[in-house]
């Protein structure tokens, strides 16, 4: 498929805002691919981290916002640590994830679902609770039997507790979360 590089100025401006949030200067990248080469998740990505940057350099925002790579990123920051040009790729991935979410684009739904459950878990208890977390995830995602074999071990060794630990001042935590999420997508 042929790609047009006559990107509308508005899109370029949008890209500018996004990369500014991540403190990334796109022009600095000379496409050496050291980010991709060191990326533990690159194998599972549809486009490589280097290509994410390349797309943005060329003004192809839509392609980036709907790619899986941004969601597959494990936030390990190896790319940013090794980039010869100080491009903070990992931070950019994070900002792109937030942007995609704002537009309700979630190409890897499981990852998004887990994050939502995790956050609602905190909303409920102020602390995260592994059993509730995994159980709700398995129900929501449809992976009903994922890791159930580990459960007996966890129980026998008292590694799980069924009564969640809860923060005392739940309302304070909730208020902070609501304020922070105003503007972003509510979990």
């Amino acid at each position, binding site marked *: 498929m042929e790609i047009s590089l006559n990107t509308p100025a508005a899109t370029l401006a949008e890209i500018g805002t996004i990369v500014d949030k991540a403190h990334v200067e796109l022009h600095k990248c000379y496409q050496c691919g050291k980010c991709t080469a060191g990326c*533990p*998740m690159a*194998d*599972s990505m549809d486009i490589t981290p280097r290509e994410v940057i390349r797309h943005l350099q060329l003004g192809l925002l839509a392609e980036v916002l709907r790619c899986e790579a941004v969601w*597959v990123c*494990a*936030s*390990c*920051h*190896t790319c*940013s*640590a090794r980039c010869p040009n100080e491009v*903070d790729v*990992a931070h950019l991935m*994070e900002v792109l*994830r*937030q942007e995609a*979410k704002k537009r309700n684009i979630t190409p*890897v739904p*499981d*990852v998004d*679902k*887990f*994050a*939502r459950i*995790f*956050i609602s878990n*905190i909303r409920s*208890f*102020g*602390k*995260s609770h*592994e059993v509730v977390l*995994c159980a709700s*995830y398995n129900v929501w*995602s449809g992976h009903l039997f*994922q*890791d159930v074999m*580990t459960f007996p*071990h*966890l129980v026998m*060794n008292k*590694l*799980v*507790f069924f009564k969640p*630990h809860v*923060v*005392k*001042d739940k309302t*304070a*935590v909730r208020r*902070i*979360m609501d*304020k*922070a*999420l105003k*503007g*972003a*997508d509510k*979990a």
Partner: protein
Amino acid sequence: MKYSYFPGCAMKGAGKAYDFSIKYVTKKIGMELLEIDDWNCCGATAAHSTSADLALGLNARTLALAEAQYPDLEIAVPCAACYSALRSALFSARSSKEKLAKIQDLIEMPYEGKNEVISFLETFSRPDAMKAITENVVKPLGGLKVACYYGCLTSRPAKIAGPDDVENPMQMDDIVALTGAISVDWAFKTECCGGAHHVSYQKGAVPLVDRILRNAQANGAEAIATACPLCCLNLDMRQGELNKKNGTDYNIPIYYFTELLAMSMGATPKEVGVEKHFFPALSLMEKYLVKGGSAV
């Protein structure tokens, strides 16, 4: 040696062995930990993937509580993910006056960004702690070959995590060496274990555990020491699964580095919860604890 203590959610669940061993070691060496009252979850990857402010708010609340309760103490954090999240919030607070004002507004609490957040690798590698550990080692793990695994978040981003070396940190190696164990030189100390995806994206994450174990095995490690409940859980839980699925022969029990410390100080494996690991970790310890006599 006195710190305010943020245990983090995992310490009350899957990370119990970490919790037990930290308590054992700190008691032995006279390190005092004062748990922050009413701390909340750091939000982990889920929070900062969703919104930068969410991660900031959740962590700033905990930091503000610590500042109010223990104004003179550094905050010691065992879990790498919590450590990273709390440090990020601390760095934001310290970045500018405007940012600090924004945080105060968000959490509706007084907060000045005063108290440093440090990891247990740091608390234990300070000279007084190192000295106290040396003095308390009574059952040296003479000759046990350990690969120290640091993971991502105690190493990166470097300016937040502040490791001694991004690619080849030595802090844990130096601490573990005090137990008489030998830390092996290997290449995957700071490679990612895929922790963030172990529930939601297993097909991508499990291979990462595979390559970490492979390199540890290739470099002659008999055990892996970790400093993060999540890393420990992943490496531990997937090992048997990988052996079954791929026909590999990994036999590398995973420990918290504090478990090794505790046992060298005389704790029985059961006392620190060694049997609680998924991959059988008891027999290796029994072997070394018998072997290691009093002479170094």
